[in-house]
């Protein structure tokens, strides 16, 4: 360990399960689309849930407990309240941890990482985004959905720094390359050639300054990642940085993931690096920011979360029409069943530990696990003789299941199972990210934080189970 050394301690990324084949777009609309795939958040995911999944993966690799958790998204679930508090609750972080949102642009997330590396304590910078646009637009085809979480802090024996920050620099510029007014559904973009021409010198200058701060030359950079508003711009900028290797930005399989892009690419950059490497993350967004890291020996012993590369090669297709319904572009006739009610704020506040943290009650005497938590033991004999038992990270097995073709769902039918947790506890729960013919009694599942629906502007966050796909 090195006194005062700061940098990245851990990271986690989350790519949703579904993929849209871009060639499907033109088959329906007559134009648009392109080659390759993009990631698609399911109907029950939003930037918050994807950031939670990424953060869970990050926290699983380190004992670090963030003092600060930040969340950035271009498409946040809430406008006039903090989204990061839902993450804070779902991650069961201490009440003393500060949870806050950073601004609604990719730059906010990049800047948060940059500031955190220069700051104090342990910070987790999370991001999540759902990128889409009008049918057949470039935004729709080339955008991607993802979550990312980067934990930054000081080097300690328990939380060794994996990538030490050795230089940062920024350039700020006021020009309009993409924009969206509050309340609008879709972002708009200016001439990409103008944006590329404007961003390239800013990025070059930021990287040059960061290299000076790090005391190294561009030749010393083993690899760089470039986060830019579009893959084309990233390619233009990357070619002009004078760095020998630019890592894949997954334009062909994932897409450009908005506010999640800098975190996603930093994770990939570190996953591609070896101890001793210098690596650079360059972000072009409302100016340019550059961060240079030196990868430490701790990287070789790190317990890794699923890599971006691995996740990019997984997943299953979603038909274009279903993608459109998930994004609200295409409205389909709902089942003739009542919609759920708005979540009660007061009831939800009382059950935060259960609803967000998936904390069951564990009978201190019998060891029985109760989901949802009970105050009275199952034999009725003892009151309040229970301990909290977090269940979110415990695997479970399907005891029985069904498919409900009539019940209300934003995306029918509901695939539903009764699952039994390893070590005790049973929960009847909705399954997600699966086709109904994949489900079997005895199949293994894992819990995932989801948005069941949103009524009256209140997202109803709770947990679902997904098939463990190894």
């Amino acid at each position: 360990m090195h006194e005062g050394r700061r940098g990245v301690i851990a990271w986690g990324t989350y790519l949703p399960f579904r993929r849209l084949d871009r060639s499907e777009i033109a088959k329906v609309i007559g134009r648009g689309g392109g080659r390759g795939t993009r990631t698609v958040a399911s109907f029950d995911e939003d930037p918050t849930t994807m950031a939670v999944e990424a953060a869970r993966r990050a926290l699983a690799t380190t004992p670090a407990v963030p003092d600060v958790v930040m969340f950035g998204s271009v498409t946040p679930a809430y406008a006039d309240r903090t989204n990061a508090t839902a993450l804070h609750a779902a991650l069961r972080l201490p009440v003393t941890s500060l949870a806050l949102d950073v601004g609604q642009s990719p730059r906010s997330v990049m800047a948060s990482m940059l500031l955190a590396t220069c700051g104090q304590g342990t910070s987790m910078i999370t991001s999540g985004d759902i990128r889409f646009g009008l049918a057949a637009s470039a935004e729709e085809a080339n955008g991607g959905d993802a979550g990312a979480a980067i934990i930054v802090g000081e080097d300690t024996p328990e939380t060794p720094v994996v990538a030490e920050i050795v230089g940062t620099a920024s350039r700020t510029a006021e020009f309009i390359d993409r924009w969206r007014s509050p309340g609008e559904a879709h972002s708009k973009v200016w001439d990409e050639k103008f944006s590329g021409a404007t961003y390239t010198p800013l990025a070059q200058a930021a990287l040059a300054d960061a290299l000076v701060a790090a005391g190294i030359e561009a030749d010393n950079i083993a690899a760089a990642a470039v986060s830019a508003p579009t893959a084309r711009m990233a390619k233009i900028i990357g070619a002009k940085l004078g760095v020998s290797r630019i890592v894949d930005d997954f334009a062909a399989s994932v897409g450009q993931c908005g506010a999640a892009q800098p975190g996603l690419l930093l994770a990939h950059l570190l996953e591609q690096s070896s101890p001793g490497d210098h690596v650079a993350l360059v972000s072009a967004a409302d100016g340019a920011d550059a961060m240079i890291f030196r990868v430490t020996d701790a990287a070789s012993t790190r317990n890794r979360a699923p890599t971006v590369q691995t996740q990019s090669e997984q997943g299953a297709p979603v038909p274009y029409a279903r993608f459109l319904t998930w994004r609200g572009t295409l409205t389909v006739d709902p089942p003739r069943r009542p919609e759920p009610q708005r979540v009660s704020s007061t009831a939800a506040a009382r059950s935060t530990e259960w609803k967000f943290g998936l904390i069951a009650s564990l009978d201190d005497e019998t060891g029985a696990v109760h989901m949802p938590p009970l105050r009275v033991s199952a034999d009725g004999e003892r009151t309040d003789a229970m301990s909290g038992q977090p269940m979110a990270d415990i695997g479970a097995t399907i005891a029985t299941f069904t498919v409900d073709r009539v019940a209300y769902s934003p995306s029918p039918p509901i695939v539903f199972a009764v699952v039994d947790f390893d070590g005790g506890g049973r929960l009847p729960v909705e399954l997600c990210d699966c086709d109904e013919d994949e489900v079997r009694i005895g199949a293994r599942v894992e819990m995932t934080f989801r948005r069941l629906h949103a009524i009256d502007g209140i997202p109803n966050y709770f947990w679902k189970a997904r098939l463990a796909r190894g």
Partner: protein
Amino acid sequence: MASHGIKDKIAIIGVGCTRFVENWDAGLDDLIISAADAAYESAGVDKADVDAYWFGTAQGGMSGITMARPLQLQNKPVTRVENYCATGSEALRQAAYAVASGAYDVAMALGAEKTKDSGFQGLNAAPPPNDGTARSLTAAAMYSMVAPAYCEKFDVDPADMRHAMARVAEKNHYNGARNPLAQFQREVSIETICASPKIAGDLGVFDCAGVADGAAAVIICRAEDAHKYCDNPLYIKALSFIAGNGSGLTDPDYDYTTFPEIAECALDAYAQAGIDDPSSSIAMAEVHDCFTITELVLMEDLGFSPRGTAWSHMLDGRFDLDGEVAVNPDGGLKSFGHPVGASGLRMIYEAWLQLRGEAPADRQVAAVAEGKTMAMTHNLGGYPGEMVSFIAIVGTELS
């Protein structure tokens, strides 16, 4: 724990039942008036002769006023009760205890439900404000998890189970086709039932109870007073009720092949009635066939079939009109329809007709003609793992 029951203390002296149907022309008030008037007439009493009322409705309205207003009852105690799908039966249970206690001489239990004004499919509950974590499946989905678990546990070929479930629907439609008050008065073939569109799991449309509007009523008095009103009353032999504690939803040992609340409730009912062997004592049972698979499992939980055998007994015809125990001779929820608050009392209505030999000739229960004198009515409400159970046993003879 004591459950003494009130065997032979209460007599049923009159019944009334509307047709159960999608009744676009009648509101809840009209249904209440029709059932009440039919019951007054059946018992030969005036409105003023009934001292107290218990009104069961799951979602039709709040308080006893929902019944007192349409009937314009004059300063009568009216209690609204709700206990899921056992709501109508709960009204009878409370009325029976009140009369047995001596608090009143004559009481009416009336259940009514106007299910078809919502515009939605199936039955719908309006939960209180909540934290949004409760599951929101249809009842069909919750019950559909039983059949696969049953097949696995008892090594039953799913095709045989599918056939047995279809036999439940076929039987109940056969019976309902001979019932002028039933919602669906036509027979349906096994082939049609098996080919019906799936609602949830392997349950198709024809595996699900009809959803109807309707009302039914029962008038009771103490057994010693019965012959003031009626030459051939029915006597209440048992009233048993259990509210489950939801343990099946959280206990990994619950295997979805039985409804433990029902089995416990049945033991209590048989003890109250002094019945050792239900199949040899009970002529007919109106049971809560909300779904075909439910009726199959109930045959085992109620003790009519050993575990793992109800499906074959159903195929063998043991529960047909001429079987050992006729089950749902009026068509059941499946064919008669299910206006939630009314169903339990509709079952008493059928027991009244059958045990007194007043059922239409083409759906008379053979076991009654052969000398059995007792009938069961049964409701459950809720879901596998978390349900309420009600059982009544009534008979024509005092013991």
